[in-house]
C-alpha cells in the first residue's frame, strides 16, 4: 500500500503530482536543488529534501541522492514525472532494487522503448504501421525498393545526422543522382557511405494516443491528442480530439496503439506517438511516462491519469473498460513559456513580480511558479499550462483566447502574446496544419504595436496615481466607457 510518494521532479508536474497525492491522502515528499528552495513544489509538499546544487546531474538526475531521500523519509514509491529520470530504465531498476515502487512501466519496457531502432522494428513485426523504408543496407534493385516505399522519399546516411548525407527525392528520375550525392557526402562526413531509404513526410501531423495499463494485463487507450503545433521540435499547443482524423481512422490508430502497448506488456501511463499524413499514420516512438499534455485527455475523457498511475503502480486493477472511456467535447492546452517568440524562442529568465491566473468554467491552470519567484536559467522554461475544455473546438478556442487574455504575468518576457495570436489566426482555427505550422505561419512573428494605454501605464505607474473617487459627481455617470477589452484588441 503506497502511503508516501517521493516526487523526483520540480515545476508544474511536481505540483500536479503532489496535488494528486493530497487528494488521495498520500504524503508527498519533494526533492529540490539549491535554487529551488522556495519553488512551489517545495512549499506544497508535506516534506522537502535538499539534494544538491542547481546542476541537474548533481541533484534531479542523481540516482543515489533521490533514492536516499526516499529511504530517509520512509517513502514507499517514487514518481519521476516527465523529463529528468522518467525514461531512464536504469533508474527505474535501481528504484525497484531498492525496494521502492517506481511509478511507471517495467524497467525493461522503458529500456526497450528507449531504443528507437529496436522499438520500430518490434512494432513493424507486431503489425503497427511504421514509416516505410529499407531496414538494412541498401542493395539489390534499389528502384524496386524505392517504388515500394513510394515517393517522395528520403535518402539518408545510416550514420548520419545534422542534415548531412541526406536528400529528398521527389520522383524516380532523381533517385540515382541523389544516391550518388548522399553517398559521397556520407563518406566524407562520417567515413561510412551506408544509406537507407525512408518515406518522406513533408507535412506530417504529430498525433499520439494515450495508453493506460495495469499490472493485471489490462491495457486501454484514452484516445488521441493532436500535438502538431511545435517550435524547436517542442510542443507548445496540444488538443484532443484531433481535428484531422475521422472516427474510422481514430479507431484504427487507437487500436494500433493498444497493440503496441500490449506487445511490450505495458503497464502504467504511456503514449504512442505517430506521424500522420495523407490519411496514413506511422509509429514514431513510445513515451514511457506521463506527458506534459496529459491534461487535455483528462478533460475530454474524465479520467485522472496521475491518480491512476499511482493506483496501478500500487497493484490496483483498472475499474473501467475500454467501452467506458468516451471522448466528450474538446480540450486545448497552451504552454506558457519564459521565452521570446520574436527572438527565436530565446529563454527569458526573470523574477515573477505579478501573476494573476484566469479563472472560470472549463479553465484549468497547472502552474509551477508563483509570484515573487525567480525563474532561473537552470531548467526548462515552462511556467504554466493553461488547459481549457468546451463543447466543441471552436468554443474551446474562444475560451482559450479568453483565458490567455486574462493571464497576467509581469516581470519577464513570456510567449503569452504569441499564443494569443495563434488562437486568433485563421490557420489555427481551420486546423489545417502540420508540424511545420509555426515555421510556415509564425516564423516572423512580432508583438503588435502597443495601444497608447500600454505606454501611458508604463509612464504613469512610477508616479503616484490619484485614488479613484467613486462619487457620482466625479464623472458623468452615464458616460459609457468603452472598455477595449482584451481579445478584440489584438486581431
Amino acid at each position: 500500500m503506497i502511503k508516501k510518494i517521493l516526487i523526483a521532479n520540480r515545476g508544474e508536474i511536481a505540483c500536479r503530482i503532489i496535488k494528486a497525492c493530497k487528494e488521495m491522502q498520500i504524503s508527498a515528499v519533494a526533492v529540490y536543488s539549491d535554487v529551488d528552495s522556495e519553488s512551489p513544489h517545495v512549499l506544497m509538499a508535506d516534506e522537502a529534501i535538499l539534494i544538491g546544487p542547481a546542476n541537474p546531474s548533481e541533484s534531479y538526475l542523481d540516482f543515489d541522492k533521490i533514492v536516499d531521500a526516499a529511504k530517509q523519509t520512509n517513502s514507499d514509491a517514487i514518481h519521476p514525472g516527465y523529463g529528468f529520470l522518467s525514461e531512464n530504465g536504469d533508474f527505474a531498476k535501481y528504484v525497484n532494487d531498492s525496494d521502492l515502487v517506481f511509478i511507471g512501466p517495467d524497467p525493461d519496457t522503458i529500456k526497450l522503448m528507449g531504443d528507437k531502432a529496436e522499438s520500430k522494428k518490434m512494432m513493424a513485426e507486431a503489425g503497427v504501421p511504421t514509416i516505410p523504408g529499407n531496414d538494412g543496407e541498401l542493395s539489390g534493385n534499389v528502384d524496386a525498393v524505392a517504388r515500394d516505399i513510394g515517393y517522395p522519399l528520403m535518402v539518408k546516411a545510416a550514420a548520419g545526422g545534422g542534415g548531412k548525407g541526406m536528400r529528398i527525392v521527389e520522383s524516380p528520375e532523381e533517385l540515382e543522382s541523389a544516391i550518388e550525392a548522399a553517398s559521397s557526402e556520407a563518406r566524407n562526413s562520417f567515413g561510412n557511405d551506408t544509406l537507407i531509404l525512408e518515406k518522406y513526410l513533408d507535412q506530417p501531423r504529430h498525433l499520439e494516443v494515450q495508453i493506460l495499463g495495469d499490472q493485471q494485463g489490462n491495457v486501454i487507450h484514452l484516445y488521441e491528442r493532436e500535438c502538431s503545433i511545435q517550435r524547436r521540435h517542442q510542443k507548445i499547443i496540444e488538443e484532443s480530439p484531433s481535428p484531422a482524423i475521422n472516427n474510422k481512422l481514430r479507431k484504427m490508430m487507437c487500436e494500433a496503439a493498444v497493440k503496441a502497448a500490449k506487445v511490450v506488456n505495458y503497464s502504467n501511463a504511456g503514449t504512442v506517438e505517430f506521424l500522420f499524413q495523407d490519411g496514413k499514420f506511422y509509429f514514431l516512438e513510445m513515451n514511457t511516462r506521463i506527458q506534459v499534455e496529459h491534461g487535455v485527455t483528462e478533460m475530454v475523457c474524465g479520467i485522472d491519469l496521475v491518480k491512476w498511475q499511482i493506483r496501478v503502480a500500487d497493484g490496483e486493477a483498472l475499474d473501467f473498460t475500454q467501452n467506458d472511456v468516451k471522448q466528450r467535447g474538446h480540450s486545448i492546452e497552451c504552454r506558457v513559456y519564459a521565452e521570446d517568440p520574436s527572438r527565436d524562442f530565446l529563454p527569458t529568465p526573470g523574477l515573477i513580480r505579478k501573476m494573476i491566473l484566469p479563472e472560470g468554467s472549463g479553465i484549468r491552470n497547472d502552474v509551477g511558479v508563483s509570484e515573487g519567484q525567480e525563474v532561473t536559467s537552470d531548467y526548462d522554461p515552462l511556467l504554466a499550462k493553461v488547459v481549457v475544455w468546451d463543447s466543441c473546438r471552436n468554443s474551446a478556442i474562444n475560451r482559450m483566447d479568453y483565458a490567455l487574455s486574462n493571464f497576467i504575468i509581469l516581470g519577464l518576457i513570456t510567449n503569452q502574446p504569441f499564443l494569443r495570436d495563434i488562437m486568433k489566426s485563421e490557420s489555427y482555427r481551420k486546423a489545417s496544419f502540420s508540424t511545420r505550422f509555426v515555421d510556415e505561419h509564425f516564423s516572423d512573428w512580432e508583438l503588435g504595436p502597443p495601444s497608447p494605454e500600454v505606454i501611458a501605464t508604463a509612464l504613469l505607474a512610477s508616479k503616484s496615481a490619484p485614488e479613484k473617487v467613486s462619487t457620482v459627481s466625479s464623472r458623468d455617470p452615464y458616460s459609457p466607457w468603452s472598455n477595449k477589452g482584451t481579445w478584440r484588441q489584438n486581431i
Partner: protein
Amino acid sequence: MAETVTIGSKSYSVNIRRSGSSFRLQIDDRDYDGEFSRLNNGSLEIIIDGRRSITYSEKKLDDSYVFADGINYVLRRQSQKVGSVVQDEPREDLVMSPITGKLLDRKGENGSSVREGDVIIVLEAMKMEHRLRSPRDGIISRITSIEIGGQVKEGEIMFELEDE
C-alpha cells in the same frame, strides 16, 4: 523630457505631462489626452478618448512590465538627451550574451582568426543550447575568461573582433 521606449524591436519617442488625474501623452508625433486613477486592487484605470482600460504594471530599473488589452508587454525605457540626435551605431565587433545561462564551450582564443558565421561561444539556458557566431571575418581581440560551466549574464561581453 522625452524618452525612448522600446517594445520588442520597435522604439517610440514618448513624453507624458500629468496634471492631477489628467495626462497628455505624446507617442512619436501623436497626442493623446487621458485620465487615470489607481484602483484598490493595484491596477490603473486609464481612459483615453472615452475608452476605458484596466492595466497592471511592475517596474525593475529601466524595464516596465505592463499588462493591458489582454497582453503582457515588456518595455525598456531610456531617457533621451535633449538635442541628441546621433544614436550609437550597434557595434558589430562586440558580441554580448543575449541570455543569462551557462558557458558550455569556447571555440577560440585571443588572436584566433575567424570567419563570418563561425560558432565562437556556446551557451546553455533552460536546457537549450545557444550558439554565438562571428558576425564577420576577423581576429578575436578579446574573449570571455569565464571558465567552461560558469555563469554568464545577459549583456555580458563574450568576444570582440578586430581586423585581420
